[in-house]
């Protein structure tokens, strides 16, 4: 059962970026879709055999596909790995590389030329690594190679092998002596042990957990935009000058979880996180243009689904852009929130404000959204729905005897979103029972953004 989610998100991500095989698939009969899903499950988890079980192999936490549609990259959380899969013409996936990063990646993107993966991690660092590792990557890169490949925020070569040589004679304060004593108690040097041996260049870093990452181009210049749990949106120059910070978009008062630059409106950035509002920025100048209410729409969606549910702070899990046709002047911004059974559709106006257009209610909590856009026209939106937990709830299970579609397809027209058929995708068959213990882990996997929220009244250090 748990596997459902993973395969779905795999499907969705690919549909979003539109490899031809998947595009065709969207309009195909549901039995074929099912076959595809099975193929992937088998590739994804060869060793699992028939008894599919999401928890035996690391769970995929985020995915991306290359522009040329030949590759899919997936991040598995438990082993901090970036995995690259080749997409075969029949849509099946074959893993061709697995690289364990120094810290768990939170967001990954592929550069426009498909050459490089950019990964933002839990400790705030952003790395660039080639889409596929060099054949001879078994050796550790030498210091010269490091500088040749142009670490974008150059680290001193000697820094890697830094060993403190302080001793009692070079230390003059109680404070430092204590630090040295601590150091002596430490027997090994984990940094060297865990340093990856494959090519990876540090581009930039925050001292905070990174939550989202965008690459964009404006006036012919490339930028990297990063968002963190401490309310910062940072604008850095693109490669190879990523050490230069051009500016910040500051004003959020809670964590930021998602960023979106609408295609064709690339001066605008929409951001959301743990706040009651969405923010709209002129990101290059760092100027806040407007805010759009989210909380009231979430509240009414929540009330519609379960009248007894109280008001809760929204936790934005996705911000997406769609446009019904190239001619249509309206840009739609579609927002999902954790443990909320609805999508919130806004129009991005010419005045650069977001106007709430519609709320689309769903049979279960929205998990992930994919939009199929061809030549600037968005045709279909597919959203995966949590069939295990009750609408509005992250932990409480729903009655499993009542059927619930795991995917809902919506068509995108100049009027907004309208439901096509919840049955376009048949629910993936449940293969093998998942134990209670494993099911209990699901909420953490599906709803982890809420954890970014800072706890009030965290203890003060003495």
């Amino acid at each position, binding site marked *: 059962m748990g596997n459902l989610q993973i395969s779905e998100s795999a499907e969705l991500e690919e549909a979003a970026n539109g490899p031809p095989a998947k595009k065709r698939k969207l309009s195909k009969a549901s039995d074929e879709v099912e076959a595809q899903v099975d193929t992937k499950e088998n590739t994804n988890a060869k060793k699992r055999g028939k008894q599919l079980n999401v928890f035996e192999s690391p769970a995929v936490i985020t995915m991306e596909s290359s522009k040329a549609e030949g590759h899919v990259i997936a991040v598995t959380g438990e082993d901090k790995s970036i995995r690259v899969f080749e997409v075969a013409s029949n849509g099946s996936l074959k893993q061709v590389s697995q690289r364990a990063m120094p810290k768990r990646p939170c967001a990954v993107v592929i550069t426009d030329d498909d050459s490089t993966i950019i990964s933002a991690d839990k*400790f*705030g*660092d952003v790395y660039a690594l080639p889409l596929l590792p060099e054949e001879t990557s078994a050796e550790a890169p030498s210091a010269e190679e490091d500088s040749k490949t142009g670490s974008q*925020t*150059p*680290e*001193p070569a*000697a*820094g890697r092998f*830094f*060993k*403190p*040589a*302080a001793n009692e004679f*070079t*230390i*003059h*304060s109680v*404070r*430092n002596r*204590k*630090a*040295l004593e*601590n*150091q002596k108690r*430490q027997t090994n*040097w*984990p*940094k*060297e042990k865990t340093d990856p041996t494959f090519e990876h260049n*540090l581009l*930039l*870093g*925050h*001292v*905070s957990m990174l939550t989202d990452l965008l690459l964009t181009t404006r006036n012919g*210049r490339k930028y990297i935009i990063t968002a963190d749990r*401490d*309310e*910062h949106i*940072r604008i*850095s*120059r693109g490669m190879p*000058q990523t*050490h*230069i*910070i051009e*500016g*910040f978009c*500051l*004003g*959020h*008062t809670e964590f930021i979880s998602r960023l979106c630059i609408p295609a064709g409106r690339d001066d605008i950035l929409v951001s959301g996180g743990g706040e009651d509002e969405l923010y709209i920025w002129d990101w290059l100048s760092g100027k806040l243009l407007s805010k759009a209410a989210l909380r009231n729409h979430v509240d009414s969606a929540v009330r519609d689904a379960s009248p007894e549910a109280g008001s809760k702070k929204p936790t934005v899990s996705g911000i997406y852009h769609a446009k019904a046709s190239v001619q249509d002047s309206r840009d739609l911004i579609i927002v999902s929130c954790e443990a909320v059974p609805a999508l919130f559709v806004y129009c991005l106006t010419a005045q650069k404000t977001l106007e709430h257009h519609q709320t689309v209610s769903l049979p279960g909590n929205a998990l992930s959204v994919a939009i199929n856009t061809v030549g600037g026209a968005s045709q279909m939106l597919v959203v995966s729905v949590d069939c295990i937990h009750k609408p509005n709830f992250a932990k409480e299970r729903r009655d499993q005897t009542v059927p619930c579609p795991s995917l809902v397809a919506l068509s995108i027209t100049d009027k907004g979103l309208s439901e096509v058929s919840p049955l376009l995708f048949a629910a993936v068959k449940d293969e093998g029972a998942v134990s209670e213990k494993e099911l209990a882990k699901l909420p953490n996997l599906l709803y982890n953004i809420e954890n970014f929220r*800072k*706890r009030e*009244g*965290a203890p*003060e*250090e*003495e």
Partner: protein
Amino acid sequence: MAGPANKRQKREEYKSTSRTDGTTELPKKKFYRQRAHANPFSDHQLTYPSSPDAMNWGPYYPAFVQQLPEDNAPTEPSETVDVSTTKDDSTLTTNQIRKLTQDVEVADIGCGFGGLLVALAPKLPNTLLLGMEIRMQVSEYVQERIKALRAQNPGTGLYQNAACLRANTMKFLPNFFKKDQLSKIFLCFPDPHFKARKHKARIVSTTLNSEYAYVVRPGGIVYTITDVEDLHNWMVQHFEAHPSFERVPEDEQEADECVQVMRTETEEGKKVERNKGPKYVALFRRKEDPPW
């Protein structure tokens, strides 16, 4: 258990009885001691502005607040403003914030007990200096120290240009300063964090240097000093490797009046002096950004 509670009680007692407004008596350090290390990665209960524009600097530099035409009778600033109670600016909107006549231009990062600030303030009377310290008690001590010094020198404007606030600079520097705002940053006797695992806690790193480059204007200087040779080498390597900085040559370094102050006036520097330890100094100039 009685120990710490007792200590806290004494501390509160001292603060409420002896630290009255307008006191000229310098604060006693023993009531402001705090465990040596604060974790720069944890959330704490920090107060910080959501952006530099949202920062209400008035209470920190009351003598530099812009006078509005309707302010016919300006009051004695140092007596009316209590930094410790007006710190939270969250209730003020950006338009309610009284602007300063000039921006802060010098930051002492990890200022400790404020020796450098207090020594530099009279030497740079036309510049606003800010000490930033993560340990709450220590930052309060510096605030009290500056208040007492201002009260000791009424009418002179002395020490009006120095202030201290509690901040975790590793996370929130851009919340306080705009791009190119600072002309000088001091990093005096930073915590060495010897363990390799803890290197990310160092105040100088590859990625943090980009933030220093962001807030320091081209031509501005980052000053470093330490008694730990390894840390000195670490800082030199990381700043030299960073394309936004270049090392200031020694003759220029020694001609800089701030360098002498930095060597002798910080609390850590004095300890090293007493122990006849070495002091390693290095200065780095912020270069112009390359075209792109």
